[in-house]
């Protein structure tokens, strides 16, 4: 809008109206106190400045308004002095004192002291002057009102109340002055310095200084002066009795709104009675004369034993009574009794508060819905009245709850606990701690939180409806006022005119003229009532207008006071005006007077809404700070020889604030966090809002920067703590939830059957609402709670993964199954949390934890390889029967493995809780001690193609070094030194014992060879384990792939064959299925919806998936071929056979050596010796057989093997005897077993090696030799099939 454009009023207003229609969504649930960045409060209180405008009113009351205005100003000033006293912080303690008179900078110190303290001392001087002035003024007023003539006249309610406020002010100031010793200390420091410097030279200043000193030093000075002055006024006690009575009346009929007004009434009762009771006057006698009702006051004092003053200061009003002259305990049965006050017990009030809350909230909700759904310009008079009543009731409820909270708090402060009453309270606990931290039971803390939440929650709701409320309030007040003035007052006016009661007539006329808003600007002159006549038969038509505005504060005061004088029991004359007014009119006027009492509050709705919900004082602790100051001594903690300087250090370390653990807002917040109570979790932001209240109070009422700074510092600390604790808790909760979901269901059932304690699922908690908070208002800052928690939980998640891997790194290879479980639980936890928090991608986090982002191989891969190399290959023993590797724990052929210690971690980084940790540890301990298919599967999953490739590549390097290193070396040595050059197959005629004996003799060197059974076999075992590892990995991988393919099938249009009943066509059924799952098929969908490039990619992906298993790529085959390439040394095959065909008896090839080794391990051992199976397992055989196959020596081995030969012969003669300490039968059993094993191994190897070849084709490459014919058999043409040679 350009600056020059003029906008009409109507346009401007409709622009504002339009604002309402803009949708402004806020997606977070409201669980915090009223969040507002801009607060607008219009204040129309003029403090009677406009009184002269109402010249039509009765002059006396206009004069009285002037008095009120002045007195109000004094009251405001008094409030400032009270604030000054309460917030006084000791300055003198920080000021250095000259240690001796000889100190050279003594003068300088004193000068500075005076300079620094002078402005503070000035405040004290002003305070002294003020109290003098106020007491004088008060005494004057009392004197004026107590004049014998005046006594008979009526004194207005407002006047009495103002006097009451004065009494209250004196009580408060006196109490504060008594309690604050720092004020006196500071002044004496100043005085000492000033006297030294002779600043106060003239006698007047000296006198003033003396006065101030006396004033500050004398306890109860203000109280006593007031009393002294009053006692000079004759009949003052009657006026004070009126004041006390009106306070009792107002208290009992709840004619107050804010908690502080309520407390003021009680203080006035106590202090008023104290002032009245003197030598001249005995309150007990006044009670007898029914001028006072002490029994009523007694009950009030019992219900409110302690009245809050400021922050942590309070007054016990009954103490004034106890100190009065004629105190008689029998008159005060309740207050004198030892029973505890209802004020001390929040739980008594709680049910009622809850009920009121629910009732009111539902009413408000119904009304709020009505307002938002129906559009009305303005409601009817009736509706407006109901709404205004609703608003008033809301304010009253809020005020009531707030006073319950503050009164409890004050009572607790005055009744601190100790280690006898509360076992948790340590003996050396500080005063403030005993008054706050240890002074509330868990139940009370919850109740406090709940009430605070109700207050703050309702405040939000009512503030939202403020415009609706205030609109109805103004319309209602206007209507009621104008109807009363223009219509109802006509009747008494008519009567007064008729009966010539001039005074009443003029008062009623004044009322009408002061506030009537006549439709035509002036009162209707023709109104017959004005002439005391009856209305005409047809009725006198009066139309009272309607407006959206209330009366001004002065106007309201004038009307109410004038009406009050009509109905008052007292008047200046002989008889009261009441007598001349009809009873019905009196009732109407009285009713109006009562209703209109609350109009002032309602007209400043937003101000009072805030005042009724103000819980700021729960934080302030100036009194306790001053009390504790200096008493808490921290020892010098530095390790050195303590000296003088340490004493200075101690004084520097004096407490300037209490730790947050003693601070009410944090105590309550922390209580929710500590107990994790789900029903309270959503309230957790409400106690934090107390800081907002306190900060606002520091800024607007106390107006002290240092208090705000302290609140702010505490909030900074608390909020950090809050976020830290909350996010840790949330992470723990979700981890526990994930682990509980993941836990085997049958395991859980069995656990409970056995009676083992295992928590069920974690108790559902309402963290979601908290996690949705994106703008929490705290001290004017807006905080994105969700973001803060996300940051922390992201870090926790990362740490959790990191620790899972570290745990794996600290254990052997069997831990891989547990690692997988941990990763899965973390993944589930991540998934659950991701619903509310924008966490990083799980896979990225996992790769980061695995150090797999920058490096090609992760920690897991490296550790798997490390474990394979140092632990698995040298120490594990394979057994095909169980398909497991187990650890051989006897002789170790390698160095013991040393690993990092497992990291220390709290439960929530592992499985969530201690119980879950135990459950899972028990489960996964089943997987330790062996390596089986489960381990291979998880290794496959965790390593992935890349990892597997790396591991295998590295393993092949190990194999290479084995084959070309120690194995080759051994082979060479043994072939040259130990193997016989020729070793024949002895004939059957020798019998099996003979054959065995022959071989034993021939192979004696090998049998005796020291390293054969140890080092050599160990090397073969390592080699064999590698082969087995590769084989089993591939098996596991294939299964994983099959699963993948099956899962991918529906997306590739591969559907299982449907079942067909008779008469159904398979093709038709299949077509239907295809159509049904069309939406799942990736390629056609991408082709249809995606770009050409995407289509190509999807097609390629599809092809890759389809053909993954089709072309029969096998890792193991490649491994075998690689192994073959390592066997390039001539020693493996020996020189070519001399006969050009094959070696039969010569021991030059590797298989002959293996036969010799087989002979060695086939020799049965005695019971105490270790078998090779035990020590090396089948890896040994795998190594031997693989080498034989790869060298192409399998058939020769099978045909010519020594052991096989023994077995063949033994099978024929079935002999059994012990030769050379070898049991033949047992030996043969062993041979048979290994023979079967060997042929199985050969079969598997050949399957892989010859997978690409056709058996028939391979036969063509074989050169067939006719079998040699024995000369004796040459005549018989008999062919002996070579395959049938073997038994």
């Amino acid at each position, binding site marked *: 809008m350009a600056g020059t454009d003029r906008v009409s009023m109507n346009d*401007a*207003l409709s622009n*504002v*109206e339009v*604002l*309402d229609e*803009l949708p*402004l*969504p*806020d*997606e*977070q649930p409201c669980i915090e106190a009223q*969040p*507002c*960045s*801009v*607060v*607008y409060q*219009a204040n129309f209180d003029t403090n009677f400045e406009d009184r002269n*405008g*109402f*010249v*039509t009113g*009765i*002059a006396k009351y206009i004069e009285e308004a002037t008095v009120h205005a002045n007195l109000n100003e004094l009251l405001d000033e008094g409030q400032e002095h009270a604030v000054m006293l309460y917030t006084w912080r000791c300055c003198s303690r920080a000021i250095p004192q000259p240690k001796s008179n000889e100190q050279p900078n003594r003068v300088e110190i004193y000068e500075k002291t005076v300079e620094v303290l002078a402005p503070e001392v000035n405040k004290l001087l002003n305070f002294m002057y003020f109290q003098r002035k106020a007491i004088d003024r008060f005494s004057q007023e009392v004197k004026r009102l107590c004049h014998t003539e005046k006594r008979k006249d009526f004194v207005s309610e407002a006047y009495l109340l103002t006097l009451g406020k004065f009494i209250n002010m004196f009580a408060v100031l006196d109490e504060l002055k008594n309690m604050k010793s720092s004020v006196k200390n500071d002044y004496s420091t100043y005085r000492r310095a000033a006297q030294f410097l002779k600043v106060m030279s003239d006698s007047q200043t000296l006198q003033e200084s003396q006065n101030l000193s006396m004033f500050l030093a004398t306890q109860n000075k203000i109280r006593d002066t007031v009393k002294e002055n009053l006692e000079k006024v004759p009949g003052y006690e009657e006026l004070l009795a009126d004041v006390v009575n009106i306070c009792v009346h107002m208290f009992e009929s709840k004619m107050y709104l804010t908690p502080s007004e309520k407390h003021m009434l009680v203080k006035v009762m106590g202090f008023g009675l104290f002032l009245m009771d003197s030598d001249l006057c005995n309150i007990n006698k006044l009670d007898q004369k029914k001028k006072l009702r002490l029994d009523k006051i007694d009950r009030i004092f019992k219900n409110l034993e302690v009245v809050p003053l400021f922050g942590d200061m309070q007054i016990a009003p009954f103490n004034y009574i106890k100190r009065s002259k004629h105190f008689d305990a029998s008159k005060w049965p309740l207050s004198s009794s030892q029973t505890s006050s209802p004020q001390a017990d929040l739980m008594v009030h709680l049910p009622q508060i809850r009920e009121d809350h629910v009732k009111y909230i539902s009413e408000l909700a119904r009304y709020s819905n009505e307002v938002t759904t129906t559009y009305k310009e303005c409601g009817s008079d009736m509706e407006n009245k109901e709404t205004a009543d609703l608003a008033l009731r809301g304010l009253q409820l809020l005020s009531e709850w707030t006073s319950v909270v503050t009164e409890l708090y004050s009572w607790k402060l005055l009744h601190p606990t100790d280690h006898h009453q509360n076992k948790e309270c340590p003996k050396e606990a500080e005063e403030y701690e005993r008054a706050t931290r240890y002074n509330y039971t868990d139940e009370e803390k919850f109740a406090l939180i709940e009430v605070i939440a109700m207050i703050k929650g309702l405040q939000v709701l009512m503030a939202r409806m*403020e*415009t609706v409320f*205030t*609109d109805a309030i*103004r319309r209602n007040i206007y209507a009621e006022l104008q109807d009363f003035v223009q219509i109802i007052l006509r009747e008494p006016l008519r009567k007064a005119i008729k009966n010539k009661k001039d005074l009443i007539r*003029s008062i009623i*006329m*004044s009322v009408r*003229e*002061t*506030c*009537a*808003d*006549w439709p035509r*600007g*002036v*009162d209707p002159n023709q109104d017959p009532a004005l002439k005391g006549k009856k209305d005409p038969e047809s009725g006198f038509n009066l139309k009272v207008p309607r*407006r*959206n*505005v209330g009366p*001004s504060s002065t106007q309201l005061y004038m009307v109410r006071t004038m009406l009050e004088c009509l109905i008052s029991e007292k008047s200046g004359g002989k008889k009261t005006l009441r007598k001349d007014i009809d009873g019905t009119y009196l009732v109407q006027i009285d009713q109006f007077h009562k209703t209109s009492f609350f109009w002032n509050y309602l007209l400043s709705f937003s101000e009072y809404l805030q005042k009724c919900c103000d819980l700021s004082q729960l934080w302030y602790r100036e009194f306790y700070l001053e009390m504790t100051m200096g008493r808490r001594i921290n020892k010098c903690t530095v390790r050195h020889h303590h000296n003088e300087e340490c004493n200075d250090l101690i004084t520097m370390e004096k407490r300037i604030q209490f730790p947050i653990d003693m601070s009410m807002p944090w105590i309550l917040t922390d209580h929710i966090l500590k107990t994790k109570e789900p029903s309270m979790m959503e309230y957790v932001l409400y106690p934090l809002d107390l800081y907002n209240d306190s900060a606002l109070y520091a800024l607007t009422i106390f107006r002290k920067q240092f208090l705000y700074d302290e609140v702010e510092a505490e909030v900074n600390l608390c909020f950090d703590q809050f976020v830290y604790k909350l996010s840790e808790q949330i992470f723990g909760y979700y981890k526990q939830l994930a682990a509980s979901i993941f836990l085997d269901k049958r395991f859980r059932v069995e656990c409970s059957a056995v009676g083992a304690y295992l928590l069920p699922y974690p108790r559902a908690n309402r963290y979601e609402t908290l996690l949705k908070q*994106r*703008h929490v208002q705290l001290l004017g800052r*807006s905080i*994105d709670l*969700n*973001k803060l928690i*996300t940051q922390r939980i992201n870090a926790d998640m990362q740490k959790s993964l990191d620790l899972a891997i570290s745990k794996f790194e600290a254990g052997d290879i069997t831990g891989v199954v547990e690692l997988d479980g941990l990763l899965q639980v973390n993944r589930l936890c991540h998934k659950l949390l991701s619903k509310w928090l*924008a966490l*990083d*991608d799980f896979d*990225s986090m996992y790769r*980061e934890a695995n150090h797999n*982002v*920058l490096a090609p191989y992760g920690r897991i891969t490296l550790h798997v390889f490390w474990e394979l190399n140092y632990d698995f290959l040298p120490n594990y023993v394979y057994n095909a029967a169980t398909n497991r590797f187990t650890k051989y724990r006897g002789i170790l052929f390698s160095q013991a493995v040393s690993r990092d210690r497992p990291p220390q971690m709290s439960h929530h980084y592992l499985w969530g809780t201690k119980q879950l940790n135990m459950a899972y540890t028990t489960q996964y301990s089943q997987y330790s001690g062996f390596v089986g298919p489960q381990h291979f599967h998880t290794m496959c999953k965790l390593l992935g193609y890349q990892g597997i490739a790396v591991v295998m590549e590295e393993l092949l390097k190990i194999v290479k070094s084995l084959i070309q290193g120690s194995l080759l070396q051994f082979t060479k040595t043994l072939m040259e030194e130990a193997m016989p050059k020729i070793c024949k197959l002895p004939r059957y005629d020798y019998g099996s014992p003979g054959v065995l004996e022959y071989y034993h003799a021939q192979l004696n060197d090998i049998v005796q060879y020291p390293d054969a059974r140890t080092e050599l076999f160990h090397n073969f075992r390592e080699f064999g384990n590698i082969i087995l590892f590769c084989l089993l990995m591939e098996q596991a991988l294939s299964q994983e792939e099959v699963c993948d393919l099956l899962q991918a099938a529906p997306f590739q249009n591969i559907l299982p064959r449907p079942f067909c009943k008779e008469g159904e066509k398979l093709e038709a059924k299949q077509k239907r299925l295809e159509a049904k799952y069309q939406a799942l098929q990736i390629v056609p969908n991408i082709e249809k919806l995606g770009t050409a490039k995407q289509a190509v990619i999807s097609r390629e992906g599809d092809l890759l998936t389809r053909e993954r298993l089709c072309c029969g790529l096998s890792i193991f085959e490649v491994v075998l071929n690689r192994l073959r390439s390592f066997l390039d040394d001539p020693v493996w095959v020996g020189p070519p056979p001399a006969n050009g065909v094959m070696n039969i008896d010569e021991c030059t090839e590797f298989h002959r050596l293996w036969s010799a080794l087989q002979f060695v391990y086939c020799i049965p051992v005695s019971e105490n010796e270790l078998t090779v199976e035990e020590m090396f397992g089948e890896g040994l055989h795998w190594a031997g057989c693989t080498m034989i196959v790869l060298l192409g020596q399998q058939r020769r081995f099978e045909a010519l093997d020594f052991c096989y030969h023994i077995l063949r012969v033994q099978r024929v003669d079935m002999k059994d005897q012990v030769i050379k300490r070898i049991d033949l039968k047992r030996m043969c059993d062993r041979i048979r077993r290994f023979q079967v094993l060997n042929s199985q191994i050969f079969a598997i190897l050949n399957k892989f090696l010859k997978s690409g070849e056709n058996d028939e084709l391979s036969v063509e490459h074989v050169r067939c030799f006719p079998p040699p014919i024995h000369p004796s058999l040459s005549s018989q043409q008999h062919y002996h099939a070579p395959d049938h040679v073997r038994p």
Partner: protein
Amino acid sequence: MAVPSGRGENVQKQIQQDWVNREYIEIITISIKKITDFLNSFDLSCRSKLASLNEKLTILERKIDYLEACVTKGETLT
């Protein structure tokens, strides 16, 4: 205490005018209050939206960081 009617009429008119004026002030006050309310809910709504925008940007930033790390293999992109 009776007021001369001429002056009384004048005062009555003034008081009536006062009602009108105060109603006018009240209308302005209500409108300012409405504007404040609007500003407050606008503030909350904006904060809520900005927070979710911020969240999205943070995710993107972190993803970029991650991808950059993946791509560079240790060297930093400049």
